[in-house]
């Protein structure tokens, strides 16, 4: 026992938490990349995903198979919700000033949170999330729980999948084309509306997965559960360089590790303060983020 042990233990915890932030940060960064909108309702998609998983696991019990089913259902539901939100709330504002869409995003967020409170199936009170019994794998003095391993492995798999889609599929290439120059994309015959919807669907599906993983690690679900992880993932996306996919991943892990290290070595009450302190620091020192490019605004 000592400093090194504590440090390594917190690193393990941080990597696990960070992979959840990374999944969520990807949605922010992809949506920003393609429509230049900070989708403040993104954290609430995490909550909806967690509830999607909750219903599946509550109905069928917790087994590896139902867990995968929960992930798939949550992701599918949230992908659909993401598309519906984009089509109904953001698309009509596409040519409006950006601040209008931003305010709308905040409105959508409030709507989802309070909508969830009044829906009978969800309701205002926290619910216990059905999850695996914790099994610890001690490596030396460090404890790694199987939930941490699941969180990490699922996140990494999804990140690989996303990287593959974005870099090697026709849709992914079209996503990058649209985010670089929407008008030129139209001139290639790319159905820009459909690419934007697809991007929202991808981001929302990742948020759903993040929600189920988050609820497995911290087994409680309630309508406001997405707010704080959402904000932290937003900070992660800015830290990594908003618009950059690898940046969101790096930023997510840094945020997770910074948070657990603060909790372990400084004070758990300061953890959130440090997280948002990081945001202020980046905005002052390097607003484009770690992997972001310094792009001047196009007129």
């Amino acid at each position: 026992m000592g400093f090194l042990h504590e440090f390594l233990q917190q690193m393990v915890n941080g990597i696990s938490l960070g992979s959840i932030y990374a999944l969520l940060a990807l949605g922010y960064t992809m949506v920003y990349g393609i429509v230049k909108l900070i989708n403040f309702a993104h954290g609430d998609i995490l909550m909806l995903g967690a509830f999607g998983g909750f219903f599946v696991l509550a109905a069928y019990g917790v087994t590896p198979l139902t867990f995968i089913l929960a992930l798939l259902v949550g992701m599918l539901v949230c992908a659909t919700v993401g598309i519906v939100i984009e089509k109904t709330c953001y698309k009509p504002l596409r040519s409006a000033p950006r601040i209008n869409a931003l305010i709308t995003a905040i409105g959508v967020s409030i709507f989802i949170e309070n909508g969830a409170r009044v829906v009978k199936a969800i309701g205002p009170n926290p619910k216990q999330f059905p999850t695996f019994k914790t099994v610890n794998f001690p490596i030396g003095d460090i404890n790694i729980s199987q939930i941490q391993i699941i969180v990490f492995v699922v996140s990494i798999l999804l990140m690989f999948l996303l990287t593959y889609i974005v870099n090697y599929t026709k849709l992914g290439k079209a996503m990058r084309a649209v985010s670089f120059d929407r008008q030129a994309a139209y001139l290639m015959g790319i159905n820009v509306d459909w690419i934007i919807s697809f991007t929202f669907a991808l981001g929302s599906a990742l948020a759903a997965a993040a929600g189920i993983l988050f609820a497995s690690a911290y087994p409680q679900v309630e309508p406001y559960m997405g707010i704080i992880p959402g904000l932290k993932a937003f900070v992660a996306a800015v830290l990594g360089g908003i618009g950059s996919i690898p940046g969101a991943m790096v930023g997510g892990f840094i945020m997770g590790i910074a948070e657990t290290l603060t909790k372990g070595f400084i004070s758990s009450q300061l953890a959130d303060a440090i997280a948002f302190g990081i945001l202020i620091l980046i905005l002052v020192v390097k607003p484009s983020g770690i992997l972001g490019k310094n792009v001047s605004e196009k007129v």
Partner: protein
Amino acid sequence: MLKVRGLNVYYGNIHALHDCSFEVNEGEIVTLIGANGAGKTTTLHSVSGLIPIHSGEIEFLGKSLREVPANKIVEMGLAQVPEGRRIFANLTVMENLEMGAYIRRDKQGVKQDYEMIFAKFPRLKERYRQVAGTLSGGEQQMLAMARTLMSRPKLMLLDEPSMGLAPLLVKEIFTIIQEINRTGTTILLVEQNANMALAIANRAYVLETGKIVSSGDAKELAASEAVRKAYLGG
């Protein structure tokens, strides 16, 4: 092939195009010349469906384009090489070409067309894995044209292909445009470099502050006093 009648376009309160009418027939090279701000790019943008038109009619192959979204216009066989090239600088050369072929479903034909493009633009073949933003201006213009060709357009709109290029490169680009035309693609060319444009075009229209002020055979226009004074430097 392309018929534009009484086209009016507004940007807010600014009346950008006044009753413009022109035609492009199959197999031709038609050029639209005029000074900066005359409305050349606006004309192409309204044909491609990028900006809403106020009134008038645009017809391509007998079908109205008024209600057709921009990406569907490309599927009809009308594609544009935009001003300033607008290549996807974050994608590789090959990925840019793939985006050009986005609408196509015939994999075999697309493969053949890559070969055809690489034969026509050997410089692009050398650099096909390079990120397009690292290409020189001339190479970017070639990529922009190659990318548009990948959709197999029947009518190709070219907006200021000579912009920002050295004279030698401009010559090369214009030779390529003529070749593209010879292999069966009709061309509508917008240019500030009226000399070059009139030299390769069959017919021309002169645009001045949103109005078409004269039109006719390219050679005759190049010889006419008014056009010489205004656009060809005396």
